[in-house]
């Protein structure tokens, strides 16, 4: 069956009762549920589609006699909103109630444009040509401070006289000068844990070998001799970079404990418990004749089995 059109004549079984003035859509099924009939000026009536027997191009045939339709209550416009005033998506998609198409003429210049696809692609190409040359400068602009050379200068951190007991972690604070981009040099406070180690502990840390520190090119910067009885550990936890502390543990005795994710290390830096993937990072250390300790400040990537230097 066709869809009823606006202005179509409406016929009952006995006579014509006017024309279709409006159609009512069901918001759920998106189908026409009712037509509104003019009743030749004697008050509109709303007729359910069930009453419609047949729809032709210009007429709607109802099943009922005109008296039945006239007996229906008057159509109440205020119970409805137009489809322009309500948000029901795709409501009108399959409804064709307009009597014919509504058209707008093409502008003269549009009438014989060939190569529309060419113009479309050309537009995209020019867009790319604008975007591409600035993509790399933007990337370089943002990457400028990301990679810097390592700073291998020796930093004074304090005197060994601060350490009273062997194999006990003692925190030394020191200042490191930092220069970021355009800014004047400024100092940040860092910390390092230093132990006065017994030979047993030294054996644990060095396992009989001197520890070498190399730069990016593989050239040796410094060697920690295995018989120097002092060990320095970077203050950065190798798990995820928090600052750890020297603490009394209920069962493990005195240990390095990181309060973030609870990694626990013994005095030699070995992981005793918790999620850390490697031992604490020993740093290059030298002790002068009068007990002044110097270190090279290094930071290694956390969360890796191997040491990857980043600072």
């Amino acid at each position, binding site marked *: 069956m066709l869809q009823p059109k606006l202005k179509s004549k409406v016929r009952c079984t006995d006579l014509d009762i006017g024309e279709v003035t409006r159609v009512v859509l069901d918001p759920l099924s998106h189908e026409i549920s009712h037509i509104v009939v003019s009743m030749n000026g004697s008050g509109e009536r709303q007729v359910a589609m069930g009453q419609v027997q047949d729809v032709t191009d210009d007429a709607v045939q109802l099943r009922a006699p005109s008296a039945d339709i006239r007996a229906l209550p008057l159509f109440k416009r205020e119970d409805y909103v137009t489809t322009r005033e309500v948000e*029901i998506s795709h409501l009108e998609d399959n409804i064709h109630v307009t009597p014919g198409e509504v058209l707008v003429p093409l502008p003269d210049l549009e009438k014989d444009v060939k190569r529309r696809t060419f113009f479309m692609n050309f537009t995209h190409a020019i867009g790319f040509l604008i975007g591409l040359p600035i993509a790399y400068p933007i990337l370089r602009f943002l990457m400028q*401070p990301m990679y810097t050379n390592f700073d291998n200068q020796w930093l004074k951190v304090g005197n060994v006289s601060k350490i009273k007991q062997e194999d006990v972690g003692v925190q030394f604070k020191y200042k490191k000068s930092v220069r970021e981009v355009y800014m004047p040099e400024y100092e940040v406070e860092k910390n390092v844990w230093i132990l006065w180690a017994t030979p047993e502990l030294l054996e644990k840390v060095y396992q009989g070998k001197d520890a070498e520190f190399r730069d990016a090119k593989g050239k040796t910067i410094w060697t920690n001799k295995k018989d120097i009885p002092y060990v320095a550990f970077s203050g950065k936890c190798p798990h*995820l*970079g928090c600052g750890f502390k020297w603490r009394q543990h209920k069962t493990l005795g005195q240990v390095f404990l990181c*309060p973030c994710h609870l990694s626990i290390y013994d005095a030699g830096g070995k992981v005793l418990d*918790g999620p*850390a993937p490697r031992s604490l990072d020993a740093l290059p250390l030298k002790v002068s004749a009068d007990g002044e300790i110097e270190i090279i400040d290094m930071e290694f990537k956390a969360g890796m089995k191997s040491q990857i230097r980043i600072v």
Partner: protein
Amino acid sequence: MDSKHVSSATIPDHQSSTAEKVIAFLDERLGLKEIQAKMLNEPIPGGSRWAYVFGSVLLFIFIMQAVTGTLLMFYYVPTTDHAYDSTQYIIHNVDYGWFLLSYHFWGSSAMVVCLVAHMSQVFLWGAYKKPRELLWLVGLALFGIVITFGFTGYLLPWDQRAFWATLVGVEILDKTPIIGDFIARFLKGGASPGQMTLSRFFVLHVMILPSALMALAGLHLFLFRVAAPAGPFKGTKEEIKAKTDYFFPRQIWKDIVGMAFVFIGICALALWEPVVLLDKATPDPGEYHPEPEWYFLFYFQLLRLKLFAGQFGQFFGAVALPVAFMILLIALPFFDKDPERNIFKRPIALIAWIATMVVIVLFTIAAIINREFLD
């Protein structure tokens, strides 16, 4: 069709006021009345509900975050030597500075809470299913943006909490295979956190994320309007149709009451628990025990597990697990094609949701209990 039917048929003796003339002027040019009608007359299948307030409430919280955030920028200076002091100045010297900062702070928590409620609801109601897949995907992107907002926001005061939470957060991102190192350096603006980090987080927090959120929230609303609300999962078409009403007035009324409750809640928290800064950030934590914001606590506790120990465990916990979780959420509407929306007939979904919530609650509690053992 004739839409002017009900328009007040010009009553002869009626002199229109200036306001009416202005409205008529604008309406003629912009079609305001039609837009307004279209905005307000959106059918809500099954009728308005208190359960539907979260989307509007989230929009409200975001607007308030934008307002308070903009105000904070009048005094805040994003440099390592001034960020802390300017934040302290806002708290202690600027009239109502403590209040606006605390509102902004608690507003972010409220946002996370409402977001989880909103997402849970969509999940439990099965509202992510066809034809609302795109709506769900854009929602997930918005979720990512809100989390990044939180993450970039709390570096800005440059106190110890800020510094350490950021440091650990960036180390976690660093564990991403191949691009992790680049991402971490990119965010930090170097190998270790400093001024470049603060600048980058500041730009992200006040420029990039707000514009991204506005654009995506607009898209989210558009997609919502195109797909129409999902409505209840119970009831026949006729029952749902019988209870249907428009967005205005009942749902808007519920939304505004919801907003008022959230507003009062945030204000109350700001009054009772105003923001207090810890010491200024330094690369030495001293006696401070680093801890993230409460809504990240469960994850923080999760990473303490032996299961996630070692390099592989860490990759598994810090990267693979959250990425897998997000991929699962993204793929959800594409593999869960069963049109059944009733959560009581979707046992796997129900169990998965309960399990996720139980893990979050238990691990948050565990993290809180763990605090005592550290002191």
